[in-house]
């Protein structure tokens, strides 16, 4: 999704309430305050977390239940004004010390039973709430207009905004809001969204989706708080979504500089419709006897012939072996020797194995990138060269090693790179370099 697409949506927002706050550092897992939002009065307030509360009601569920007790009375039903939805992740929330410490606990009175229910969920909302300096969040009241509540730790303010133009359903809404509130593309992992969807408006088992930004796939991923139908309470309050924006945790170096950058590049998938090519693909598949166990080999052979795996190839393999298309794409993106993008005529592989690394292969990559004008993992525009970093070509004794086409060249130096690329008979270069 492009930032432009969501700009228009954001322009339609009307801010109904705004409050600024200071982010506070945590003390032994606590910020010692919690946040309360009343959607009826649009009042945003902060309250103390007492020592007693920490001692008696330790943990996310404990806090939630105590805060509920403060809000409800013996007549409160699931759709009462005062029925709160409470969010907390406990003193360990957001630490990396134990599996599960990223979870958020939430409680409310359930539409299914009209008694309190708790549900726990992943996603980044709970930790971001904590990092903003709140041990819990309580939402009460009902808004007439559908609103989003934005907890923006980067700009230190909380707003209640109308959001008429956004999609209703989480799989779209999470992406929209993430892109909308992120300053840059990299900033997206600082945004977490909580939302429900159309189903939750109509069914008592409606759930809540908590998002996190998956930088590898470039999409929001959703985690569900499913127990008790809290999604329906959420809708009933006139809530469209909660958004938490974290203070930037991106280091000052840029993700593009890191080796993981290529994971975030979108792939283009091509189709092949020439009958001979399709026949060739089929032939490869039949050579492996349409055997599921050999789909990787099939793809390798196809890759070898066409320098990429096309949509058509995936479809054919699916047809003959029965392995699902989705899974075949998984395979095609999982293994490094397979590629959905078309590779160049000549692939230049630079060994980045340990032996080559200590012998300075990083400098060779830099030089190759300069000379070819492409980055590692890319192909020149004329489709002549592809540049790849690989881990160990198995010729470590003559490090640093590069492989041009199927020729292995050893003891390469950065200054030789230009010579190697320009020389059509690269084979002789091996000697020159002695």
């Amino acid at each position: 999704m492009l930032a432009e697409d969501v700009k228009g949506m954001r322009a339609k927002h009307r801010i109904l309430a705004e409050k600024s706050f200071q982010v506070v550092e945590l003390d032994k897992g606590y910020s010692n305050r919690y946040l309360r939002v009343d959607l009826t009065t649009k009042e945003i307030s902060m309250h103390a977390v007492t020592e007693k509360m920490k001692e008696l009601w330790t943990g996310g569920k404990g806090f939630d239940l105590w805060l509920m007790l403060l809000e409800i009375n013996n007549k409160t039903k699931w759709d009462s004004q005062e029925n709160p939805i409470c969010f907390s992740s406990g003193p360990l929330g957001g630490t990396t010390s134990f599996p599960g410490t990223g979870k958020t606990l939430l409680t409310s009175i359930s539409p299914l039973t009209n008694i309190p229910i708790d549900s726990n969920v992943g996603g980044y909302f709970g930790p971001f709430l904590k990092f903003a300096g709140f041990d819990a969040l309580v939402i009460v009241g009902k808004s007439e207009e559908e609103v989003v509540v934005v907890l923006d730790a980067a700009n230190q303010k909380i707003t209640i905004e109308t959001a008429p133009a956004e999609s209703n359903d989480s799989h779209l809404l999470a992406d929209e809001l993430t892109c909308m509130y992120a300053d840059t593309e990299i900033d997206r992992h600082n945004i977490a969204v909580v939302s429900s969807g159309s189903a939750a408006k109509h069914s008592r088992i409606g759930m809540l989706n908590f998002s996190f930004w998956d930088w590898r796939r470039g999409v929001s991923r959703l985690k569900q708080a499913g127990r008790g139908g809290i999604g329906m309470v959420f809708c009933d309050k006139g809530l469209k979504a909660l958004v938490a924006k974290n203070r930037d945790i991106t280091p000052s170096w840029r993700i593009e500089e890191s080796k993981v950058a290529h994971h975030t590049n979108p792939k283009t998938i091509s189709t092949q419709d020439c009958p001979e090519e399709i026949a060739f693909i089929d032939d490869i598949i039949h050579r492996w006897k349409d055997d599921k166990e050999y789909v990787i080999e099939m793809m390798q052979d196809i890759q070898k012939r066409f320098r990429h795996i096309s949509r058509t190839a995936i479809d054919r393999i699916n047809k003959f072996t029965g392995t699902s298309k989705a899974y075949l794409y998984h395979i095609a993106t999982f293994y490094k020797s397979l590629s959905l993008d078309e590779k160049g005529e000549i692939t230049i592989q630079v060994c980045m194995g340990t032996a080559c690394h200590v012998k300075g292969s990083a400098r060779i990559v830099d030089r190759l990138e300069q000379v070819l004008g492409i980055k590692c993992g890319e192909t020149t525009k004329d489709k002549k060269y592809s540049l790849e970093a690989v881990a160990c070509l198995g010729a470590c004794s003559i490090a640093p090693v590069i492989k041009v086409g199927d020729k292995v060249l050893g003891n390469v130096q950065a200054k030789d790179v230009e010579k190697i690329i320009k020389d059509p008979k690269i084979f002789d270069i091996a000697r020159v370099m002695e």
Partner: protein
Amino acid sequence: MINIKNLQSIAKKEQDKLSKYKGMLMVCTGTGCVSAGGMDIKKEFTNALVRHKIENDYLVVGTGCNGFCAVGPICVLQPDQTFYQKLTHKDIERIVKNHLLEGNVVKDLLYKDSSDGKLKEKMNDIKFFTKQMLIALRNKGLIDPENIYHYLARRGYESLRKVIIEMDPDQVIDTIIKSGLRGRGGGGFPTGIKWRSAKKAAEGGIVYIVCNADEGDPGAYMDRSIVETDPHTVIEGMLIGAYAVGAREGFIYIRNEYPLAMTRLEKALDQAKEAGLLGSNIMETDFSFDIKIHRGAGAFVCGESSALMTSMSGLAGEPKAKYIHTVEVGFRDKPTVLNNVETWANIPVIIEKGVDWFTSIGTGDVKDNPWNGSSGTKVFSLVGDIRNTGLVEVPMGISLREIIEEIGGGIPNGRTFKAVQTGGPSGGCLPASKLDMPVDFDSLTRAGSMMGSGGMIVMDDKTCMVDVARYFIDFLIDESCGKCTPCREGLFALNQILTRICHGEGKEKDLEDLREISQTITDASLCQLGGSAPNPVISTLDYFTQEYIEHIQEKKCRSGVCKNLIDYRIDENNCTGCTICFKNCPVEAITGEIQKVHKIDLDKCIKCGICFEVCKFNAVIIK
């Protein structure tokens, strides 16, 4: 067809045939030598023999890697072992004429030992070879890997014959347990015990044999070499394993990056099948076993046992939880024995020479319990900043110092030793103070590293240890399958911190955070990739703390590696004004005239390091 009766006479006949030659020219056609023109050397030898009409007296053989790749291309004249090195096309004629025809060794093509300055004529006079002990590599440089008869002439398939006629399967397993053989693929699990568990789990039903030739550790190429030099020893090992556990089907999972190894294996399998040594009714007995090849597709994690088997099923190679043991629930959910190439290569020798011989090599007393020590030898790829790079096979228990200083010939270019890295991305970096430690499974683990599959990368003082740690974490980020959070996100977090430190933006607290995150990754990851991933960070933190602190406090990289912390400059006293750097600088950052001191414009300089590389007068310095 070869059977248990005629095997020995066929071998004898082949030995006689080979001994008729006056000599054999064993030309290395391993990857290292080929990249330096080895194929051409081989062809030229054949031509030269024909030119001098002695093609019936001498045999030219293309062998797998000889081991001493540093001085390739190599040719060894057998049986008298004359070792010719760094050959070029024009040298061949001289060897054939002077040596083969006239009996005069060509002196200037011999290896010169830099420590005593003497020429070494015979292979075994060279220190690189004398300290070695060959088991898995026993046939390296001695046979044509593409000719099964060469293998047979060196008592090949004799051990298979022995187990079939003399031993019952449980006896074989017992022998392997008693030999103390531990897996050479990384973990060091006793091989015999693995076989026994798989056999027990199979209860007489289906069980598979798999050879792990996925060799993913960067900086290691032992398995590749074994397969390329002597593929039949792996096949024979697997056959013996199959006989012992009762398997009928076996697989070799081999790395896609090794095309030569793959073709050699395919050839070897075909030849073995044709000779009746593989397939149904092996050696005309009722023992049947067949082997198929599965290609890897470039994923390090597929070396892990459960991921490997998932990948063999045509799926993405994601590991399964540790409590599922592949010996019980493996390939196609059947009990599966997975062993490394080198492990399999050891089997025929153990059967041939016996338990007493094998356990006399190595450390500890393993007869009652294979966990008590490390018997036998281990192949290492000795690479990095070391004079004699190559493959070495040494007895367990040898010290790191012996390997690095005596076999490896020490650090070249007047540099000093800083660290040695073993165990691949799961291993660690050991400093000079650990050099006298014996090399075996348990000592290495105790020191915070690992035996691993045998990469041994030597690093000199211009290697930055923070950068090395970051390098391994980068590698693992790429290779993590992404299935579990601690590994996927934890490694990313480590990368952020390490990159920050390398960029001179590190904070005091970073060191603490590195340890905390490392601990979490180790404790909470699903498979051993994640489980051992922080080792490179922890070991460098333990042994090279000072370097981390310098990066953080002084913004200084003493090894001159971290780009953001260094500048290239020209030392006025050393510069002769030769203009080489000026000509080579890709961005014209260097100015100067002939025979005058040159200067680097730091604003233009992109820190590519080329001037540093090309200056012959050590005038380019890193500040």
